[in-house]
């Protein structure tokens, strides 16, 4: 079987073959994202009942929780790509890491934003120094640091290796940071607010949240593939196939 050979897999690691492959995938993921969003919003707004405690403000959950999940998930995936790029020296892995970072940072910001707007009617305040909120804020800093380091280095080879190393350092440190924030939060009990106020979430609520998570996931894949294509074009702008592509597209 050709699928099991190393050559089969490594051909996708070449930017030139990956470029059209990614291009074929994008419409599928974009379409899935759109469809799932419509379904998720319908479930979230029209099927899921009003929460007897929080009223309708709880509907923010259907984007808040998926955004928070995606922000963490994308960070892990980004670091795996960065590590692969550093260890195996494959350029495409590093490009994928670079392509994921802005979208991950955006989801982190959105998780904070929607969290603040959810917190106001629920807890009576936009922000509490809760362990989860604080961790999310730190995650945003980590994303911004990664992107800032990339942006500051002109030489693409140094940029990819330096940011790869930073991602690795980040991976080692994230559990420690998370643990320390947890500890800090239990030490200062006064500031914490119990988020688990809905012990039995209605099945429809859970489904809506899950559908929205998959919608965000598909969106993130589509956007990351689109961005990685741009990075490939920028990095390979002197290659003949890129020039031919640009001339055709006029």
């Amino acid at each position, binding site marked *: 079987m050709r699928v099991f050979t190393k050559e089969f897999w490594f051909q996708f690691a070449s930017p030139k073959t990956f470029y059209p492959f990614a291009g074929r995938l994008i419409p599928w993921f974009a379409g899935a994202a759109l469809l799932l969003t419509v379904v998720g919003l319908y479930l979230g707004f029209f099927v899921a009942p009003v929460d007897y405690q929080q009223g309708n403000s709880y509907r923010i959950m259907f984007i808040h929780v998926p955004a928070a999940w995606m922000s963490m998930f994308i960070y892990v995936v980004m670091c795996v790509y960065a590590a692969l790029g550093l260890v195996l020296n494959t350029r495409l892995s590093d490009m994928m890491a670079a392509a994921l970072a802005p979208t991950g940072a955006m989801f982190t910001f959105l998780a904070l934003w929607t969290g603040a707007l959810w917190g106001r009617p629920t807890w009576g305040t936009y922000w509490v120094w809760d362990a989860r909120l604080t961790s999310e804020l*730190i995650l945003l*800093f*980590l994303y*911004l*640091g990664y992107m*800032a*380091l990339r942006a*500051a*280095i002109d030489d693409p*080879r*140094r940029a990819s*290796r*330096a940011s790869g*190393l*930073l991602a*690795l*350092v980040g991976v*080692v*440190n994230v559990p*420690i*940071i998370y*643990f*320390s*924030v947890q*500890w*800090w939060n239990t*030490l200062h009990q006064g500031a914490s607010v119990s988020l688990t106020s809905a012990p039995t979430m209605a099945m429809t609520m859970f489904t809506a949240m899950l559908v929205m998570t998959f919608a965000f996931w598909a969106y993130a894949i589509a956007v990351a593939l689109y961005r990685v294509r741009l990075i490939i074009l920028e990095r390979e702008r002197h290659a003949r196939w890129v020039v031919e592509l640009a001339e055709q597209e006029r």
Partner: protein
Amino acid sequence: MWVALRWVVRRDLMLALRGRGEVLTNLMFFIIVVSLFPLGVGPERETLTEIASGVVWVAALLSSMLALGRLFSSDYEDGSLEQFMLAAHPLPVLVLGKILAHWLVSGLPLVLMAPVLGLQLGLGGEALWVLITSLLLGTPVLSLLGAVGAGLTLGLRGGGVLLALLVLPLYIPVLVFGAGAVEAVRSGLEASAHLSLLGAFLVGSSLLAPWAASAALRISLD
């Protein structure tokens, strides 16, 4: 290996002592930052004691971060960093020596100054001792972690601010447990758990950080 380590430490200390000004500037910064807080939040003793450990620790974080810029830059400019890479000794050992010397010059003075500032903010007795111990364990971790960031940002434009962005999130655990140790004592608990964790950070980072910093230097000088 020990010879190489000792040689680097002595060399860097000599260089640092020749330019005494830098050591003092760093210490002055630490003192000024801490002294600004009573002016900002008011002179009430209870408030100040409440925030004392956090203030001293954040100030220590900032001043040790500011000092990082000088960790590799002069060796980078005069080319001796490239000599280091070609040397027969493993680079992590030399880097560890540089970090150690850097801490002796920029971290240790902060630790020695901290009790005075702690007294100013109304800390006393056991809390003061825990503050010193936590700084003694924690500030080397700051230098070790910071060395990785300093290596990555070596020679970049706007390196200073970028370094802050990279390094400060990594400092959070040290801050939490460092300031937390003093808080624990003040509220009548044991600080030993906090201090043991800081010690664990110190051991862990002194094992890993020199390698990561060396890798960062190799990337930056490539």
